[in-house]
């Protein structure tokens, strides 16, 4: 898939994975697995980028005798998801046009 397109999509996917409640690295990967496979280093870069853009907040908490980082979505992050939903309608229209069979051109 086109790198730029995929990058934008993955950002929103990660935001979605922490939307309803805070989550941690491996849980995010597991939640996304049915839809898209994500490597650890890619996830790290995305989380850093989203944190820098103030779309999520990070806290470190103890879990089973070790430390684990938890990520929760911020109002900006929620806004990004809503923006994406609006953009998506446009993208779907373009997609419909691109995949349309040649024969359908005359009917329109």
């Amino acid at each position: 898939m086109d790198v730029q397109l995929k990058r934008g999509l993955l950002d929103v996917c990660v935001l979605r994975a922490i939307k309803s409640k805070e989550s941690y690295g491996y849980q995010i990967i597991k939640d996304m697995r049915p839809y898209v496979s994500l490597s650890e280093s890619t996830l790290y870069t995305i989380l850093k980028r989203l944190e820098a853009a103030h779309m999520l907040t990070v806290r470190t908490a103890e879990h089973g005798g070790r430390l684990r980082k938890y990520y929760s979505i911020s109002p900006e992050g929620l806004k990004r998801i809503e923006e994406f939903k609006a953009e998506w309608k446009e993208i779907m229209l373009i997609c419909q046009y691109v995949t349309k069979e040649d024969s359908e051109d005359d009917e329109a």
Partner: protein
Amino acid sequence: MTKLNFILELQKRLSSLPQEELEERLSFYMEMIEDRMEDGLSEEEAVADIGNIDEIADQIIADIPLSSIVKKKVRPTRKMKAWETALLWVGSPVWIPLLIAAIAVALSLYAVLWSVIASLWAVFVSFCACALAGLAAGVGAYFFKNLPIGAAFMGAGLVLAGLSIFMFFACTLSVKGAVILTKAMILGTKKSFMGKETAK
């Protein structure tokens, strides 16, 4: 491989990362391995599930800006002695121009790469122009009832049109190649700055 071996190995390969960045990356991978073990995987399986360590190290190096690697590498590990500072100052008329020259040579070699590509595109444009001119001259000759000359011009124009199509593919390929080469060179530069600690 045990998780400790994995982390130590990764640390060895990323030793030129800024300290804070390195620690954060390592604890991220540690957390990932431990969460997999908590999920029921054995230590061996959990490490294997993370992926190939060479690829991981390469991807991380590719993500880090070159400047932060150079900064870390150039920073002296101890305070310089007075005579070292003096030598650095005295020698500066020699080493600074040499350094600038070395950078200039590297940049000019890179510029040569893109000029070759630019000249390929120039050849492509001239092929297109000649093809159009040939066809136009052919049509012109036809009006002046000079059929053999017209046919020759037409033929030449068509041959050039054909060649320009090939040339177009060659040009786009060369640009793609140069982009891949550029990425490889950046990674190579970073790795060379990482020094011998990263060597296997």
